[in-house]
């Protein structure tokens, strides 16, 4: 391999690059765009929920007759909002962007183990996401059977569902390539002295996430292949005998089982939620350690809890299927494992909370988002408990209570952590600082609006309002007492959208500001801050590849001159 640095063309430097930093930024920009798009879909849906049957302003002409959102399109927006936010937005941002950019830097590696494979995984993601979204342009519109695509509905749905399946196959492939890369990189490319228990918690979370994706995604790929076969060549893997659709008996062999899809789907989709939260735990840990100027409390407990969480995530999935007629024994099994899996989450949250005690807390923008994450994830986690108990779930299943629960963990949970990460690592990527005033405005407005959108969902859910209702429950008697909350939630959602302008403007202004020249403005201890070349980071990442001498959070070491001791400095 040539040692000289030949001049690279624009295309090989920025587009087909195999440099993990460029690929990380590619994942970051693409996923942020999809997050915004997924948000916009929901903003349209929420108009219908607040004012059923009214013409939707601005985009009404794209929707239906008279500018009113038709019910089938409402279903498409719902299914695509979920799919896009999870598979095109959060996971590529948390794992593809943050993981690719930071893991090599935090372990002292010059790149990922397989740079070309890395580029392949990004472009597969890009292609898969484009395929996914073309569903909106096929006859019948995009997939409209929920992000969960349950048969027989999904099997008999319009062409958009086939497009969804093809998109998913590509996205899953991208994910698998990325997982292999992260796993091999962390195992093989740790620098001298970087033993397992000296890894930053961020790297541990990416490692465990990669394992979950590696082993849990393929069964969904298998299920996707089976559903494609059902739709395209008329097999009956998921189709029971004797189905009648729109008054006509289906001409297929029958003998299949919709439950089979549910098992294979949730085998992935439950570990998937831990894929959504683990990187967030990692980012929040880094930001809290840095901004309390003290070591994290319970490093070992955090690692063991996360590993245990990863393992347990494979044996709880049927708590999404309590109402499918399963027997009491099997229901009790899944209920027990589900209750047990709440324990490591509590251990992790407790460790993070205890880490604040006695800290010299700096309330900068990343820290505000990290602090906000803690109670929001707490609410999300606690509201998961009644859902995990089979008896209570009889009442709560498929209601807005579920939507409230999972949005709390992902939206003011994971997404807040991701914002914390963006604000925190922005100086490392660019050599510039973000504007603190805009950052604080972004945080406080988002925090208030998030709660405005999702807290009332617990109320409407408990009242019995089902999810995926096009009219928001207007035609259901039991929703009468709580229907007016829809308008409050919608207005909060639209204000939440406006609040993101603080972030977007901040990014634009900050990117155009002058470089500060600082390499470690947060006085952090991890080697991604202390030993990398001056930002923006160049080829090879480090002027000299560092050796690591101790743990990652040596802040306020007694007797030390400064309040932080870099990992690469003998102390």
């Amino acid at each position, binding site marked *: *391999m040539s*040692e000289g640095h030949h001049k690279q063309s624009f295309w090989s430097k920025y587009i087909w690059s195999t440099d993990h930093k460029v690929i990380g930024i590619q994942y970051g920009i693409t996923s942020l765009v999809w997050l915004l798009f997924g948000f916009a879909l929901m903003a349209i849906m929420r108009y219908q929920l607040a004012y059923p049957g009214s013409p939707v302003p601005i985009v009404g002409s794209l929707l239906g007759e008279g500018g009113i959102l038709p019910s089938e399109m409402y279903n498409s927006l719902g299914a695509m909002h979920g799919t896009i936010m999870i598979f095109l937005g959060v996971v590529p941002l948390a794992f593809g962007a943050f993981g690719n950019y930071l893991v090599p830097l935090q372990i002292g590696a*010059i*790149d990922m*183990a*397989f*740079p070309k*494979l890395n580029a392949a995984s990004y472009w597969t993601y890009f292609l898969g996401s484009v395929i996914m979204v073309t569903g909106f342009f096929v006859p019948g519109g995009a997939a409209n059977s929920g992000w969960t695509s349950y048969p027989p509905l999904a099997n008999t749905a319009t062409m958009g569902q086939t497009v969804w399946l093809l998109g998913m196959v590509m996205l899953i492939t991208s994910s*698998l390539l990325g*997982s*292999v*890369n992260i*796993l*091999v990189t962390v*195992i*093989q*490319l740790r620098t001298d002295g970087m033993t397992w228990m000296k890894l930053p918690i961020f790297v541990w979370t990416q490692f465990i996430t990669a394992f979950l994706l*590696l*082993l*849990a*995604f*393929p*069964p*969904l*790929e*298998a*299920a996707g*292949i*089976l559903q494609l*076969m059902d739709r395209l*060549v*008329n*097999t*009956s*893997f998921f189709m029971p005998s004797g189905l009648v659709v729109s008054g006509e008996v289906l001409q*297929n*062999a029958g*003998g*299949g*089982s919709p*439950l*089979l899809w549910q*098992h*294979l789907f949730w*085998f992935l989709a439950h570990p998937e939620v831990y894929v959504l939260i683990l990187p967030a735990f990692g980012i929040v840990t880094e930001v809290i350690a840095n901004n309390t100027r003290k070591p994290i409390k319970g490093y070992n407990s955090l690692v063991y809890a996360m590993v245990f969480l990863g393992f347990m995530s494979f044996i709880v999935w049927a708590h999404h299927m309590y109402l499918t007629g399963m027997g009491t024994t099997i229901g009790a099994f899944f209920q027990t494992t589900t209750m047990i899996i709440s324990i490591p989450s509590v251990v992790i949250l407790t460790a993070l909370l205890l880490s604040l005690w006695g800290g010299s807390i700096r309330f900068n923008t990343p820290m505000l988002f990290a602090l906000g994450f803690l109670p929001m994830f707490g609410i999300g986690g606690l509201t998961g408990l009644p859902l995990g108990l089979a008896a209570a779930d009889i009442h709560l299943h498929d209601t807005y209570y579920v939507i409230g629960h999972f949005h709390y963990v992902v939206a003011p949970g994971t997404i807040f952590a991701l914002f914390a990460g963006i604000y925190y690592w922005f100086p490392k990527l660019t050599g510039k600082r973000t504007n603190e005033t805009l950052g604080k405005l972004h945080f406080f407005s988002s925090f208030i609006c998030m709660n405005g959108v999702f807290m009332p969902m617990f109320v409407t859910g408990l009242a019995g309002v089902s999810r995926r209702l096009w009219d928001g429950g207007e035609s259901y008697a039991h929703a009468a007492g709580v229907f007016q909350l829809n308008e409050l939630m919608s207005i909060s959602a639209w204000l939440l959208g406006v609040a993101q302008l603080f972030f977007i403007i901040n990014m634009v202004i900050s990117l155009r500001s002058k470089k500060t020249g600082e390499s470690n403005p947060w006085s952090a201890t991890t080697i991604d801050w202390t030993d990398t070349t001056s930002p923006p980071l160049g*080829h*090879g990442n480090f002027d000299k590849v560092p050796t690591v001498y101790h743990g990652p959070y040596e802040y306020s070491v007694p007797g030390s001159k400064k309040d932080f001791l870099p990992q690469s400095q003998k102390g």
Partner: protein
Amino acid sequence: MDIPFNVKERPDTGLYNGKLGIWFFLASEVMLFGGLFSAYIFLRNGVDNWPAGTDYLDVPLATLNTLFLISSSVTMVMSWASLKLNDFNKYKFYTLITLLFAFGFLVIKYFEYSAKFSHHYYPSTNNFLGIYFTMTGLHVLHIIGGILVIGYFYGPGSKMWNSDPERFTNRVEIVGLYWHFVDLVWIFLFPVLYLL
């Protein structure tokens, strides 16, 4: 700027990167075919009238196919061993035999599938045939993928033997591991679909 441990093993793990990578990839493949095996078990348990493999399938042909794959597996490991023993010509010889056996497998599969279609046995006919076509079809796609990569290392890719023999040997070992896995899947597919 070279990635460490691409060729030389990392001391504490004893592995080079590609070997670890392919085993992780094979782990995901176990789960992919596992999903289909799980579907097979689930579907078969759901009905009383699951047909026997011999009702539809040709056991002698599939036995021959099994022998083809086992043979290709041994010639594949022999081709890697030849590189370790510095015999490039033997490597080419064994790799060619491997490819021939792999093509043989595809040819027999072609005859099998055509025979089904000519009897009007399609994936949609019943779930046994559905899962048969899906599982063997996915397996065939993996065979084709293997042929492409092994073929590349037989042909243009083999130039690396001159510039970086150790790295080339590792690559052949890695594709060999993939190929053995494809053989492994068939070792289970054959009795499950054809004999049970």
